[in-house]
Each structure stands twice: as C-alpha cells, then as structure tokens.
C-alpha cells in the first residue's frame, strides 16, 4: 500500500486497541509518536513507553520491514489448529511489531512486507507479513 492511499484516511487522535485492530483488519499498522521525546511505539499505550508523556500522536507505520527475530512454533496453544507456523518481530524502522509470517520461511535480516492479517484468536487480529519480492 502506498502512502498516497492512506493520506486521506483520518487517524484517530487517541489510539485505542479497537482503532489499532480495525486498522490491522484494513491491512494497515498504526503506532504512536511521543511529542515529548519522539519515541515511536508499534502498538497503542496510554502513555509513552520511554518518558511517560501523554502527548501522543497516532502515526501510520510502514508496511515493509526487516525480520528482527523469528521462531517456528511446533507446539501451539489449544485454540491454534495448525502447527509449524512462523512468528516474527519485524523492524519497521521507527518501531517494531510482532506478526505472523506467511509463505516461505524468512531468516533474521530478511525483508518482509505486510500481507494481511489472521483472526483465529477469538476476534483478536494479528498482522501477517510475507517475504518481499
């Protein structure tokens, strides 16, 4: 998704979980930037994770990034039917997010791009990424 497509979408002034989840369902990632220290987080928080400031602005996060760490889970929790799925922490530049990887296995340092989301956990979506072309 290009920046052009998202420019018109109004970002919530105060980012809640429900706003974040709704964005994930539209294949977008929202985070927060602190007006006091500039820290950017990958998910909503009531106050800045670094300085505790509450002057937070919702920001649109990039949808491409690099795998920071990853693992393949062969013993899943009970509500996850499949086995052998890959979970990764993806570095988006200013922030990191935890995601499910789809498609081919990606190693640390591999380039990935947002591919959609899964919603297998009781109406809690998780972003999915796949290897970049």
């Amino acid at each position: 998704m290009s920046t052009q497509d998202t420019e018109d979408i109004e970002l919530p002034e105060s980012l809640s979980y429900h706003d974040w989840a709704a964005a994930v369902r539209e294949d977008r990632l929202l985070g927060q930037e602190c007006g006091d220290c500039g820290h950017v987080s990958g998910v909503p928080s009531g106050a800045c994770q670094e300085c505790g400031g509450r002057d937070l602005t919702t920001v649109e996060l990039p949808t491409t990034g690099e795998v920071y760490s990853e693992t393949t889970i062969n013993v899943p929790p009970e509500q996850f039917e499949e086995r052998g799925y890959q979970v990764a922490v993806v570095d988006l530049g200013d922030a990191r997010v935890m995601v499910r990887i789809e498609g081919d296995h990606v190693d640390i340092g591999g380039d990935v791009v947002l591919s959609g989301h899964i919603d297998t956990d009781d109406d809690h979506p998780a972003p999915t990424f796949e290897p970049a072309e």
Partner: protein
Amino acid sequence: MARASVVGAGMTKFGVHDTPLQELFGDAAFEAFDDAGVGPDEVEALYFGNAMGGQTENVTHLGPQCATHVGMAGKPVQRYEDACATSANAFKNAVEAVESGRHDVVLVGGVERCTPETGKDTDEMTRIFASASHRQYEQPTGLTFPGVFALLTKRHMHEHGTTEEQLAEVAVKNHGHGSLNPKAHFGKETTVEEALDGPVVADPFRLMDCCPFSDGAAAVVLVSDDLADSFDAPVDVTGVGHATDIVPLADKETPHVTKAARDAARQAYEQAGVSADDVDFAEVHDCFTGAEVLASEALGLVEDGQGGVAAAEGRTSRDGDIPINASGGLKAKGHPIGATGAAQIVELTEQVRGEAGEHQLDGVSRGVAHNLGGDAATTVVSVMEARA
C-alpha cells in the same frame, strides 16, 4: 547489615503431585517452620505466591486457605501473582516488611501445579502459560512461552554466534546437576546428542531445551536482622533488586539484553555492596536453555555474548569458576511456576549453610538468585550470604 535473614527453609520434591494446593504448600511450610524451630503462633504474616491456580484448578483466594492449613488462621496474608516471578516478588515484599519493622517473623512461599494432575493437557497448559504474553498484541499471533524465549535467543544467536550445541550443553549441565538433587523433577543425565535429537518445540528449542511442567511448593521463614542471631544458621539477605521492562516484547529496546535483569542485578549488588565477581554461585531462571545464557550475562557472571561458550566450556558447571544452577535449575529441578522463586531462596540457603547434601558446592558463602516473569519483563535478583 542484612536486610533480612532466612532462618528456616523447606520445599517439596518438584515433580508430579496428586495433592491439593494447600496440602502441597503445607509440606513445604511445615518443613520451614521445623527447620527454623518456630510455630505458626510466632509467625506474623504470610507472603504467598501462586500464579495460575484460577486458570489451572479453579482456585482463587488461596492465601487464607493455605494460612489456615498451616495454623496461621487470622494472620494477614498477601498473595502475589507475577507469572514465573511470583514467589520472588512475595519474597521481596517480605524482606521489605521485616526490614521496615512492620513484622519481625514472616513466612514466604509459593505453590503451583502445572502437570496433567490439574486435568489440563499440554495444549491447554500452553494456552494458560501464554496468558503471560500480551493478550492483544502477542497472543493472537499464536505465540507461546517457548516462542517468547526462542525470539530472544534467536536474536542472541544472530548477534553473538551462540549455537544450538551450546544451548544443549546448558541442558546437559543442568540435568547432570539435577541428578544429584533428590528434590529434582528429573534425576537423569542427558547428552548433547540426545538433546539435539529431540523434537523441536519452537526453534531453536527442542524438547530438552525446555523446563518441564511441574508441581511443587517451597517456603522460607524470614526474620529481621535484629532477631536473626537468636536462630541457628541464619542466612542473610543482603540485596533484593526488582525491575520491569516494556510489554509487549517487540517494543523493548533490545529484548535479548533482558534489561530488567540488569537493572535488578545492579540494585541487588549495590545493596549488598558487592559486584558480580564476588558471587560464588547462582541459581538463575532457566525456563529454557537460552534463558540461562541471557541470565548469566545479565547478572555479569560471564561476559556479554559468552553465555553459551561458558556453558560449553564448563565454566558454569558445579566444578567451574561460577557454578550456575547446581540444583538442576528449572530445567531439571522443575518449574512449578509460583514456587520457583521461593525454591531458589531455599537452594541459596542450603548451599550457604553447607546443607545441600549430594549437590553441595565447595566453599560457597555468597549466592545470587535470578527469577523472571513473563517475557523477562519482571525480574527479581536476590543476594544471600553467610552471616558475618
């Protein structure tokens, strides 16, 4: 000066127990009472840990039940829940209570059952353990607890070249140590080949990289510095550090550095007036082999990046220069969540007293315990030493 002193210690064997939680806790508490030579009437309060009884056994408000069972009905009880750091947090608060003069004699302990004796199978327990990860931003990816520590360990491997063989060496070492400890869940030694041949749980972790689901309880009697000399063999608590880190994991600045452990260790060493070099032995939270590697570095016991190498070279074995997890650790001794932190305090007490039996270390007088909760977002580090 001591912040507080342990004068009695007790724990059940870790393993599989078909015993209700209050009875299991009672076995550890009565052993601690008898070791201290006190009765429940002399004990002023209970600092109690149980992490997940509500989820595993439909039991909450367990504090007064356990207090009643051990003859302490009427006394104040506070229950702590901090994932795997549950009873270390109870211990920290108990230390503060006797140090401040709020109480002079208290009981601290924890109990948990995690084996199929609870009626929960592996998939269900995997889900319950995953409840310590973020409900909205981590659990929906299908993350598990082996997965959490796999993410931390994989990054450590990437940056420092830590290998799967080195992780296996941690398991081999801790199983070897556990084989000398009659209270350990696993009494059997293993080999690197056997460890590397096991099924993958969450790469790089195979079955032998993971601690077991265990049942068990541990407890200590803690008294003020002033009272300690009136007991036999007090072991002083000279430092307790406690720190947290950002949740969820992805937002931590450098997740595999386990900053909370470093912050807690700094506090504990400062209070005790010591440095990592002054530590004779350590019990660290090796829920997974990689977690021991990260902990040994965070506590300053080995150089950053060298945790795996140190294990492979035998530096952290019971006959090495800095023995880690002489009890077998969580890996072999077992990990009944809410009892684990208290059991580390029991181990430090027995080692410093020279009463650890077959797994006694030579000439140790100062030990450090490292108990973490969740994705290492809570860590409590305690320094204990022989009373001067």
